[in-house]
């Protein structure tokens, strides 16, 4: 389908300009899409490995925790965990991956209650079981990876969005706008040629008529 226009030389120039612009945009977007996909694949592989690792570790930690819960009175357990020794605070910076803004998480541990450097266990060892210790140790060990997973996964989600958008634009340009413009340019050129030929034949005819009268 072509765009409805007046077949004039002005219109033709305008359309040609639009066409070159569209082609340039198409090329740029295609490059953007390719680079986005390349970076996306790197991230997504990392995401998959991290997630598999973390799911294993977490399940492990939870299982130990469940054991601790089973061998300890509930009151003791809750009491032991009532006051955590630290509070996590998150600083978020924006980072730019191919004009996709993704958050970068930097976390800091703050000791709560102004205590000096304390252990990861918020309780004494008298009333608690060893399973609880190992469970909490595993948890605090995978915390950095958990934060990394959060960051990578968010980036992957945002990039997937952006890639989908870019791909749509590339396709719209490639399969709709550019063919349409090309067809319209062709239509106008043919129309102009046709009227030129028409004018020429008319002139020749007039010349014949004039000559016959002389």
């Amino acid at each position, binding site marked *: 389908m072509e765009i409805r226009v007046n077949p004039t030389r002005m219109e033709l120039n305008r359309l040609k300009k639009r066409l070159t612009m569209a082609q340039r945009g198409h090329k740029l977007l295609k490059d953007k899409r390719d680079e986005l*996909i390349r970076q*996306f*694949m790197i991230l*997504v*592989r990392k*995401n*998959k490995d991290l*997630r*598999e690792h973390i*799911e294993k570790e*977490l*399940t492990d*930690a*939870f*299982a130990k*925790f*469940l054991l601790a*819960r089973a061998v300890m009175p509930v009151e003791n*357990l*809750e009491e032991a*965990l009532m006051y*955590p*020794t*630290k509070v*996590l*605070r*998150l*600083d*978020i*910076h924006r980072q730019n991956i191919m004009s996709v*803004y*993704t*958050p970068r*998480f930097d*976390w800091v*541990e703050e000791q*709560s209650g102004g205590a000096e450097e304390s252990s*990861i*266990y*918020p309780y004494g060892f008298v009333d608690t079981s060893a399973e609880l210790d190992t*469970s*909490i140790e595993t*948890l*605090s060990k995978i*915390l950095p990876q*958990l*934060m990394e*997973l*959060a*960051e990578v*996964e*968010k980036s*992957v*989600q*945002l*990039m*997937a*969005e952006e*890639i*989908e958008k870019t791909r749509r634009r590339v396709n719209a340009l490639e399969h709709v706008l550019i063919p349409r413009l090309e067809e319209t340019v062709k239509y106008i050129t043919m129309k102009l040629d046709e009227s030129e030929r028409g004018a020429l034949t008319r002139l020749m005819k007039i010349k014949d008529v004039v000559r016959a009268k002389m």
Partner: protein
Amino acid sequence: MSTYKIAVIGDKDSILGFKTIGVDTFPVTSTQAALDTMKKLVSDQYGVIFITEALAQGMEDVINEMHKRYLPAVVLIPNSRGTQGIGIEQIRSNVEKAIGADILFRKEG
């Protein structure tokens, strides 16, 4: 730049341990309660929200909506009964969305 907090939503058995490492815990038992907690957390300076897969199951649309936003990052974690594979499934669907085919897990789809 401002400071954000980290939260975890899940059943009590799974998430109580998180409290010791300084993450705010929100024990809930039903999907509805999880949904309400989530809504509260989103408007309250939480940068990362961990939620167990079991609870996430009933609220996919809310979580998908979060995935499109810059913040917060909603991350699925397994619960004490192990993983249900929803987290991995999400990665797969991301790949499919971006590339159009699932090339990461070598399955024809």
